[in-house]
């Protein structure tokens, strides 16, 4: 398949075939990650800037490792290390980086639309590593890939996304991707953590976890940002845990052999019980491993793209 995208900003820009092509490419790179020498010269001479204007450990490390395993040179930049801290605008920071002629910039930013803002102004590829509440396409693709490895066929599957949907870029991107793959999606959260107009979204919406989890093939837990309580969106964390923490009892209501995912970092005991997080049906660590492979695939596809 000829890859046609300069940037990866949101899942909605991809077709179903392109999503599956990412999975298949990742499968190939996954094998590299299991070799004793985990490095190939595929992207030798390419340079990738990891520009994380918002804190991140696993996504940044994952991209860094993905680039290095393909022999790309990766350069890290955080908000505190960049001139953004000195009041420079994102536009000027981006143009400065572009003047150094990188092949791609991976951007994590707290504002929705920031990756598009950058992509509209830069010649090099831009990979969205999470922009505000908007999108986290590589997370969705690694989640999808993780499930694809388990299921291969998505027909008839139902996935529950549980937790703070309103503020979650992971939920938004996964909804688009899972719908594209033919998966039925359910959302479950207290009304205060559901997006406005969510009833018009292509998913079933629940506020009761007992009802939402019934018969699902996978549960995707989301991290609860602890400041939501201070924002007045929740009475207290104890009540949230009591009503929305995924426990063994809930998993008994799900389909037999139902899987559990979490993008991390996990608040054990708050949104997911430790027993579930560590259970054999948990794919949390598989997601991390898949993340490197998927990001290798994406860097490969974007950096070796032949312009039309």
């Amino acid at each position: 398949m000829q890859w046609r995208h300069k940037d990866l900003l949101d899942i909605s820009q991809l077709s179903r075939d392109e999503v599956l092509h990412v999975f298949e490419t990742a499968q190939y790179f996954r094998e590299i990650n299991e070799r004793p020498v985990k490095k190939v010269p595929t992207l030798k001479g390419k340079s990738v800037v990891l520009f994380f204007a918002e804190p991140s450990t696993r996504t940044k490390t994952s991209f860094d490792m993905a680039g290095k395993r393909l022999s790309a040179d990766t350069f890290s930049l955080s908000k505190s290390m960049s001139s953004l801290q000195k009041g420079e605008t994102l536009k000027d920071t981006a143009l400065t980086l572009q003047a150094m002629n990188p092949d791609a910039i991976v951007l994590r930013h707290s504002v929705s639309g920031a990756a598009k803002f950058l992509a509209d102004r830069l010649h090099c590829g831009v990979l969205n590593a999470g922009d505000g509440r908007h999108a986290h396409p590589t997370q969705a693709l690694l989640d999808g890939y993780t499930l694809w490895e388990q299921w291969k066929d998505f027909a008839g599957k139902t996935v529950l996304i549980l937790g703070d949907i309103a503020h979650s870029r992971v939920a938004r991107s996964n909804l688009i991707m899972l719908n594209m793959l033919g998966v039925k999606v359910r959302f479950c959260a207290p009304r205060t953590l559901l997006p406005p107009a969510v009833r018009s979204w292509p998913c079933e919406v629940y506020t009761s976890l007992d009802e939402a989890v019934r018969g699902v093939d996978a549960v995707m837990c989301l991290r609860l940002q602890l400041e939501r309580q201070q924002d007045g969106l929740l009475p207290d964390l104890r009540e949230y845990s009591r009503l929305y923490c995924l426990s063994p009892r809930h998993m008994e209501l799900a389909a037999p052999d139902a899987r559990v995912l979490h993008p991390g970092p996990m608040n054990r005991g708050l949104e997911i019980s430790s027993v579930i997080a560590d259970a054999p049906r948990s794919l949390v660590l598989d997601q991390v491993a898949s993340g490197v492979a998927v990001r290798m695939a994406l860097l490969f596809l974007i950096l070796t793209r032949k312009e039309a």
Partner: protein
Amino acid sequence: MSSPDLIVKNARLRGESVDLLVKDGKVLEVVPAGKAPKDAGETVDAGGLSLLPSLTDVHTHLREPGYEWKEDIATGLAAAAFGGFGNIMCMANTDPVNDKAGVTEMLLDKAATAWPDGPRLFPVGALTVDLKGEALAPMGELADAGCAAFSNDGVPVKSSALFRRAMEYASDFGKVVIDHCEDPYLGVAAGANEGEISGRLGIPAQPDAAEAIQVARDILLAEYLGLPIHLAHISCKKSVELIAWAKQRGVDVTAETCPHYLTLTENELADYDTNAKVNPPLRTEADRRAVLEALESGVIDMLATDHAPHAAHEKEVEFDFAPCGITGLDTALSVTWGLVSKGALSEDAFVRAWTTAPCERFGLPVNRFQPGDPADFLLFDPVEEWTVTPESLRSKSKNTPLLGRPLRGRVVRHFLAGKNIV
């Protein structure tokens, strides 16, 4: 009949070919084309162009003092003059705020220097000191200095009790309070309408109820106090329904809306276009239709630009960090005339909304083309096409989502009190 000192020949006034006779800056008479006397001091051949009264904008932000890189009084009045506006009311959210006579006097002095023949500037004084919503501004002093009305525009007054006192106090000076209707407790002033688009984009947003709640408060206070209230930049159906209800009850309420609420919707934000980020936000198609119908029917009395200039570098940032605001003085006439051309708005409603209604409400000079009216008029080409580009705009700032789009209708000449200012 005394002889005119200016004759405008062969103009189209509401479908009729007419000659306009002007004497001492006032309308002397409008006569059928060809019937004007020959002995005028000056004759202008309109060549069949439309004759419109100068427009009045009751809601503009000129940014001086304090933010002159966005706009200053000279450039703002230039945009007004070329955009067809003869009277401008400028809001108080400058730095320093217009809450002292000295600021009002400075505004008037600068306007008189930059544009001695107009457009005329009518400052709006602050309702509360420094717009903080904590203490009443010295409205008597401000009225004496030349303020035409009072408003906390940009910073809604949270306290209903203080807002009540402000309405009462302003009434002592015969001035109307203009309210920026927004319940600040119901979400941040994010520049996006809470709904399907904002949810999908993941941007902070505010529901239409934030506006409507404050509209309801103001209406109930106005009725209770028996005092007038003017509601600024109405954007949604819920507010329209409340205003209609209030008018049926005889409440002394007037309201304005802006060209962008009549022609654009929240869909403009789909690509995170910060030039479409405005407060109140662009709403849904149902809201747009409701506001347009309300303007036609008179439930919404008048149009205003809410001209809010911001420099390019301020808008060329991440969506959350961009300030709210759209410029309007340059484009308002063409945009709203476009609605008339399409039959979506009657010419009567257009003229009422831009001229008689605002001038009657705020006691400003108005031209109805009756003898003795100020000779404030435009020669307007209703079919000339132009494209909105940075170069085509007189405002110092170019922050409009209309950039690159074609508009139809342009001011060819603009006369104020019989003097040609454009």
